[in-house]
């Protein structure tokens, strides 16, 4: 669910170029799509959009390698948040 929102954000705000195709598996780091500034902007966007706090130790390549990875990370945070909320 989160993947569409993330893909859209990266396309419109970071890549800003329709000629560059972006799918869920596009390697964001190897392709140089995310640099340190873009990464920070993306983290801020994720926190605001999904209402989660991205911890410093979670800003790691595994969580930001692709739209798929970011989406998986957000979902895992959501699960954790709802579990914590339930107890």
């Amino acid at each position: 669910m989160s993947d569409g929102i993330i893909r859209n954000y990266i396309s419109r705000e970071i890549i800003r170029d329709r000629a560059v195709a972006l799918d869920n598996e596009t390697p964001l780091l190897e392709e140089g799509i995310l640099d340190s500034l873009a990464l920070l902007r993306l983290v801020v966007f994720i926190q605001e959009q999904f209402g989660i706090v991205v911890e410093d130790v979670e800003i790691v390549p595994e969580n930001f390698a692709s739209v798929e990875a970011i989406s998986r990370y957000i979902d895992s945070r959501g699960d954790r948040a709802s579990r914590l909320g339930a107890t």
Partner: protein
Amino acid sequence: MIHLLTQLLTEAATRAPRRCAVLAPDRTLTYEQLDQHSDRLASTLRESGVGHGDRVGILAPKSDASVTAAYATLKRGACYVPLDPRSPDQRLSMIVVECGMRAVITDAANAERALALAAHAPELETVIVAGPQPGGEVVRSNGRTSTARGALAEPAPIDTDLAYILYTSGSTGSPKGVAISHRASLTFVRWAARCTALEPEDRVCSPAPLHFDLSVFDIFATCSAGACMVIVPDRLSMFPSRLGEWIERQRISVWYSVPSVLTLLANHGNLSALDLRRLRTVIFAGEVFPAKHLSLLMEQLPHARHLNWYGPTETNVCTSYEVPAGRGPLSGPVPLGRACTNMDVFAVADDGTPVTLPGDEGELLVRGSGLMHGYWRQPEKTRQALVDNPLQPAYAEPAYRTGDLVTLDEDRNFVFLGRRDGMIKTRGYRVELGEIETVLYGHPAIREAVVLPVPDELLGNRLRAVICCERDDEAAQEEVLEHCRARLPGYMVPDVIEFSDSLPRTSTGKVDRVRLSSVVASSS
């Protein structure tokens, strides 16, 4: 006595052949290996007809291979020119042609690109892929195994020969090459090694790429001490908590980078959870370090020295300031400090008088052996930058005009106030706004264009372009960005593009940047 950069390596290899010279993520080179491999690669260059004074491009990220290539080029008596693999083809091609580059050394990942560049540059006869063989593999050659040039009495290298050319942004639309001699480089290297008291046990790291003059420190000053140069894995600097762990694990003792990387580390690196006692010296240069973030960094690294180094590429580092520890949060700008050994810096006010009292303002000038030779094949620009020292009328002596406005503080340290011209810093890189504007004007639909810096705590500045264009839809914006990306390195591509019907003008008809900036400031 050492008078060439290459002698640093041969001495270190003789003194401590088995010590680690370069520690790359997947490879280690001892001093003996670095010396031998660069000898082999230098022979390949000679066999390819590269001679004394020729320019050799290095198209590769900072790696064991590119460090070997730099030493090989110098051993051949030639001068190396870093080509940033992240720059667009057009810009690289411009540099290759302007330099009259004879050969390019590259790595496997960039080999195809190097060949494509060579296809458009008649003088570029040789492309060598470094590794896996120490001598490299020649993938393009002129067919002649020419030693004809070399056989004719080729001069032995001397310290006024060029060692490297570093390309920086130029205001009139094309990059300019800052040509640095062995002597100028060694003036910095010797001072830097002493200033940081480098020892063979040190592990020195700088994430700055080869085309950035910060790399002179970790490549050559490290070697001068026989210490170990540690190369940061690609993209690790983006992930502050990982970078912090890596610095701890690699036992880095001396770090040199632009402030933005350290700002990220201070705010997101979880440094207090790490054991960073080995990190004894942290050096930053390239832009102003915001006091707030520097204080936060120093709180987390109470045992380390923190040095602010200043100097345009044309002078390498010319002043240094050690930030005093244990004085609580810093306020105000970090001073540029005072002149390095064997360099002289002084400020001259607009009326030609020297700045001698705290609070007086003037432009900073630099003289000394560390100055550049000049801008490559740009005599007019060189004359404007390297002027006759205005304070020494008795005889001609070059002084470099930095274009930086400074004042003196109560402790007689120079303090940076601003620029005289359209040069700004972003991500530690210097950028001439005029170069971006020239590229924008090159787009057929753009009638007028102006680029304004928007101050940003992390980046120094973001770039905001205001353009008057035939069209102003979203497609036009993408097209303009694409146009810029094809011609400029990423850090020079505007972060924001705005459309406007016309640009405000001053009474003299110039674009009113002040008014535009205030509009920018109030609207954001």
